[in-house]
């Protein structure tokens, strides 16, 4: 048995230590907000936080997460009110929505690292996340808005 801490909760799972976290989170723990897109760290749909840093869960082994804090989109905020989530909704960013768990998890790290990201900062931080619907222009807009909300004291 392997113990994982996901969204501040302990899970005992019976999994191959080499299984990517993505599948342990989705198929064993049952949190499906984290998405499978490519399996080879190309698209970012599976982005989660490992001790607060954005990682691609499709290429991160379960063994690497033992004793660490894993955060998925479901654990990013209690009421869908992280500044990035608020801004995403305000700017009507999602279309199909499949990639946005990963997009928001990437954006959350950027917003923590840079309180006032420039377009260049946003491009650099978000270039690993693909959106097939092409919502990039709104992602940029939403991150600027999230920075503003963060400054104004949203959670």
């Amino acid at each position: 048995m392997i113990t994982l801490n996901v969204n501040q909760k302990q899970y005992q799972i019976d999994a191959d230590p080499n299984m990517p976290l993505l599948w342990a989170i989705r198929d064993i723990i049952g949190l499906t907000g984290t998405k499978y897109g490519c399996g080879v760290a190309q698209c970012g749909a599976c982005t989660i936080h490992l001790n607060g840093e954005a990682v691609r869960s499709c290429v991160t082994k379960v063994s690497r997460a033992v004793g660490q804090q894993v955060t998925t989109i479901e654990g990013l905020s209690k009421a869908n009110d992280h500044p990035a989530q608020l801004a995403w909704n305000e700017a009507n960013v999602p279309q199909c929505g499949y990639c946005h768990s990963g997009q928001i998890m990437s954006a959350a790290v950027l917003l923590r690292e840079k309180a006032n990201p420039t377009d260049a900062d946003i491009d650099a931080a978000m270039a690993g996340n693909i959106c097939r619907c092409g919502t990039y222009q709104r992602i940029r807009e939403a991150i600027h808005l999230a920075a503003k909300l963060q400054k104004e004291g949203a959670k």
Partner: protein
Amino acid sequence: MSVQEKENISRRGFLKLAGIAGSALCLGLYVSEKAEASVLNEAQATAAIEGVELAAWIIINTDGKVTLISHRAEMGQGVYHSIAQIIAEELEVDLYKVDIQFAQGDEKKFGSQLTGGSSTIRGSYKNLLKLSATARQVLIQAAANRWNVPAAECYAALGHVHHKPSGKSAHYGELVADAAKLTAPANVKLKARADYKVITKPLHRRDSPLKTNGEAIFGIDKRLPGLQFAVVERNPRLRGKVKSFDATAALKVPGVTKVFKVVMGVWTTDREGVAVVANSTWAAMQGKKALKVEWDDTGFEHISTAEIFTRQRELLKTSEGLPLRTQGDPNGVIAGSADKLDVVYETPYQSHSCMEPVNCIAHFQGDKVEIWGPVQAPNWIQDYVSKKMGLAPEKVIVNMTFLGGGFGRKAMPDYPHEAAVISKEIGAPVQVVWTREDDATQGPYRPGISYRCEGVVENGAISALKFRMAGQNNDHWRSPDNGRPNRSTSEGFLKPYYDSIKNLSFSDVPFKTPIPTSFWRSVYASTNGFAYESFLDEIAHKAGKDPLALRREYLKDERLQKLIDKMEAVSGWKSRRKNQGFGAAITECFGSTVGHIVKVSKKTGGGIHIDKVWVVVDCGWYVNPDIIKAQVEGSVVMGLGAATIHEITFKDGMVEQRNFYDYKMPRITDIPLTEVHIIDNDADAGGMGEPGLPAFAPALTNAIFDLTGKRIRKLPFDLNAV
């Protein structure tokens, strides 16, 4: 598909009201030819309240809760929200309190549920408005009767009926029992566009919050008790058979339980593979890697991309093809000209590459199968799976989830059929996930097409245009070749040209390969648009005319003239200098006309930079301008990938691209700034999921010609290599 669907709906009787005293009011359309009011019996009404759809589209419970049964799929285009926004207006309810549920597949109840052809809003809005307004009027009448006051003194707002003089009010739930007993008025007056409070407003999407906290259930997220997971080893040559397989190593992978041959139907063809079933997707994937399969790839051609396009060009040299439309005598004019334009445009095979890879759940239970998945056409699946598996249609229950992109790929019933076959074999519910590599290498694809475009310009005027297309016909995958030309040969081309260009023809030069093809966002308009609108740019230059002025001259249509006015105004077209890098294109498909202006410049160190894209949309009556803008912004990004990156290539019958590392997607670093303008008018609604896409590529290449003098006739091309 779309026009026919519209007709289907209008032929259906319009159900005024149906309900049952004391429980709920059900509103909807019956597929009956009768146009009389129908009252549901108690069992039907109870079933409706319990969430089993009848013909109802809207259900109002006694507690006032309004439930919308959405008959179409939500794949990003926004209809989950937009249908609710339509009914909220005339029903006078709070858009954000309407409970939205996806309908199950049932063509008899809902008509076509194919979420394709950008057809959902334009195909249903008139009935939805009428249905909602009728319901509101009946609720008002019920309240007026109860209060013994004239209905004219009452009005509805936010799910309540109010009596103005007395200040009395009642919520809809209190009125449904009385309302269900009333006869609905035949012709309720609908609001004028100017009086809309909800429709035409850029309101926040209902599905957005579900998509920012992981709550939205896509097909791949659906879970059932006892669910097994499967992947399939698929033939890299698509059409071959399984000769033999060795499952020894696969079955040793912890979690893998079964390995067996599976045959999936792809419309009229069968596809063979080997399924690996396990207790997690990962274990199944590991089992697949350990599997050894020997394929029998005899009996079909192992084609290569170079061969495909060489053959298309050869055909276009010699064959006149099957005429779709001929007016005047283009052949005579062209034969008599010593100075004709005669060029070939080429567009590649492309993958849909939805972010959510193809996947489906099926649970086969003796005499029935229940399916859950990201599907665009639940009724097609019901029909196809029932025929393939020998079940009655009502024994194939198809449930829609959210779709992580569709773009036409998820209109195919192949993967639900495959899941049903696997579930039947293992006797348990199973989720079959296609790996990204399966998604990239297995198709079906947008067909690669070559276009021969000929034209004659005399004294600055168009004397003749002749278009021939050689490419696979998607229809041939669904039904036998009927010897007719591809009906989409002229899709995207603006119809008013038929009135102004005397000698004009379109023909389809039949071309076949073993490669499966299918609809891809905006379908043939996505490639036709590039060829035809680029060629018109060539014609304009040959005629010595401004490309937009030429279009203005030949498009004698009030709406198109206004569209061109707007394109010029927002982009500064008229004040631009020659060779500054401006390009224009206009296409029409699925009822909407869209014009793009692209501005490009030379990058220092070489290559082309896209400075700005202006898009003007005329889609007639619309629901939510922000969703339209989002669809167009996204279409520009998808169009950018389609024009400058994407090409599925074949070598010895196998697809050469596997994943996002060799079928690269535009990223946030690659996108141009896009500005969208919508023309306001009250014309019949057009579609908006697709029409924003086709004009981008030709506007871009026309801009590159303006800047550099280089005419790009083959997609994709590398912006950095121009």
